C-alpha cells in the first residue's frame, strides 16, 4: 500500500483543506500515516506558537558583567556586547519581517499621520513595522491617497535616527522586485505613484537606509503591507 503524499500530509497538518478524498480514505486505514500527520500537527502548533516569542528581551546590561566576573572572563578586551551581532535577535527579526509581508502580519502601531484633507480619498493603507536594523522606537505608516489631480503614497515615519545617508521608500512585490519611489525627508513625504504600477502586485512598502550614492536597495528599516 502506497503511503500518503508527504506534501499533502504537510498541508493537512497546517490545516489546509485537501480536496483529495483518497488521502482521507488512506488515513482511515493506515496507522503510520495517521501518526505521521499527528506529529506534523504538533510541529505546526508549536511553530505557530513561536509567533508570541519573536521579540524576546535580553537580560539587563549588567548581567553579563556579573557572569563574566564570576567565571573570570576577560571583559576588557572584547567588543561591547551591544555592537556585536545577536544571532537570536537577528533570526527573530527575520521572522518578523517575513510575517509582515503576509496578509495578516501587519504589526499594529499607533497612527501617526494626521487625517487626510476632505478632498482626499484614502485608497489603501498600512502600518509599517520595525525591522532588525531600526531602533525600538521606530514606526511608520503608509497611505495611498488620491488627491484632486494625482495619486500619491504618503509615508510617515517616527522614532528613526538621523540617517548616515538617506531614507528611501520602495514598493516591493514580496518576492524579487523593488521599485524606488523617492526620498523621505523630515519623516514624511508624498510620493507620486506611477499609474503603471499595479498596487495589487506591489503591496509591500519598504523604507530603507541608503548610503550616499547607493543605487541598489540598502538596509530595510520599516516594512508593511497596504490593505
Amino acid at each position, binding site marked *: 500500500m502506497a503511503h500518503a503524499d508527504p506534501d499533502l500530509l504537510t498541508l493537512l497538518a497546517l490545516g489546509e483543506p485537501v480536496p483529495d478524498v483518497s488521502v482521507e480514505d488512506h488515513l482511515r486505514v493506515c496507522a503510520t500515516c495517521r501518526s505521521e500527520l499527528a506529529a506534523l500537527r504538533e510541529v505546526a502548533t508549536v*511553530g505557530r506558537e513561536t509567533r508570541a516569542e519573536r521579540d524576546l528581551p*535580553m537580560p539587563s546590561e549588567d548581567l553579563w558583567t*556579573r*557572569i563574566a566576573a564570576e567565571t573570570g572572563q576577560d571583559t576588557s578586551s572584547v567588543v561591547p556586547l551591544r555592537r556585536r551581532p545577536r544571532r537570536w535577535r537577528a533570526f527573530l527579526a527575520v521572522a518578523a519581517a517575513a510575517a509582515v509581508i503576509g496578509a495578516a502580519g501587519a504589526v499594529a502601531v499607533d497612527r501617526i499621520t494626521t487625517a487626510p484633507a476632505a478632498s482626499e480619498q484614502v485608497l489603501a493603507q498600512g502600518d509599517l513595522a520595525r525591522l532588525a536594523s531600526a531602533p525600538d522606537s521606530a514606526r511608520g505608516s503608509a497611505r495611498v491617497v488620491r488627491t484632486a489631480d494625482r495619486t500619491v503614497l504618503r509615508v510617515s515615519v517616527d522614532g528613526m535616527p538621523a540617517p548616515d545617508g538617506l531614507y528611501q521608500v520602495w514598493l516591493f512585490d514580496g518576492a524579487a522586485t523593488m521599485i524606488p519611489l523617492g526620498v523621505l525627508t523630515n519623516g514624511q513625504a508624498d510620493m507620486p505613484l506611477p499609474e503603471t504600477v499595479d498596487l495589487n502586485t506591489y503591496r509591500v512598502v519598504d523604507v530603507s537606509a541608503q548610503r550616499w550614492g547607493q543605487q541598489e536597495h540598502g538596509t530595510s528599516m520599516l516594512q508593511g503591507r497596504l490593505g
Partner: protein
Amino acid sequence: MTGASDTVDETTKSFVAGDEGALRAVYERYAAAVLRVASSSLPSRADAEDVVQTTFVTAWRSRESFDPAKGSLLVWLLTIARRRAIDLLRAHTRDEQVVRVLHDTGGGSPSDEPVRPERIVDRMVVLEAIGELPPQQRQVLLLAFYDDLTHEQIAATTGLPLGTVKSHLRRGMTRLRQRWEVDGGAR
C-alpha cells in the same frame, strides 16, 4: 537519524573547548531564551535574572559534561535554567503569596495565557530551528505559521511556483520535527 550532532556549530565547539570569548558568544545567542524560560515560572524579574546568571555560570563550569549527542546546547542551557528555577521556587514555597501568584499568572509576560515552562522550551527549540532554515524555506513556513496563508496564497504573495512552496513547507516542517524530536528526547 543524525542525532543533534549536526547542529554542533563552531560556537558550541569553542564553548566546550573553553575558548576565550566562547561564553560571551553563547550568552549573546541564548540569554534571551534562557531568560524567557526562567521568567515563565518566576514572576520576579530579579529572580529570573538570577537564574540566568546561575545558568551560564554553571554551564561554563560544567561545559565538559555537555554531550552534543544528547541534545543541543540551547536545550542543555534551558534544562539547567528549569532546574534552577524549580530550586528557587522550592525555596519560596513557604511564601504562599508567591505560590498564589504563580498559579494565577503562570509566569511569563502579562499578555500571555498561562503556558507550561516545558512548552516554552519547545517553542525555543522550534524557534531556533526556524532560524536555521534556508531563508526562502523559512519565509514560506512563517507565512503559513504566522499569517495563516494557504500554500496557494503563499505562492501568490511570494511569486514562487506552487510546487516550490509545497516542497519548502514539507522540508521545513520535516526539519523542525527532526530538531524537536531530538531535543525533546533530551529532556
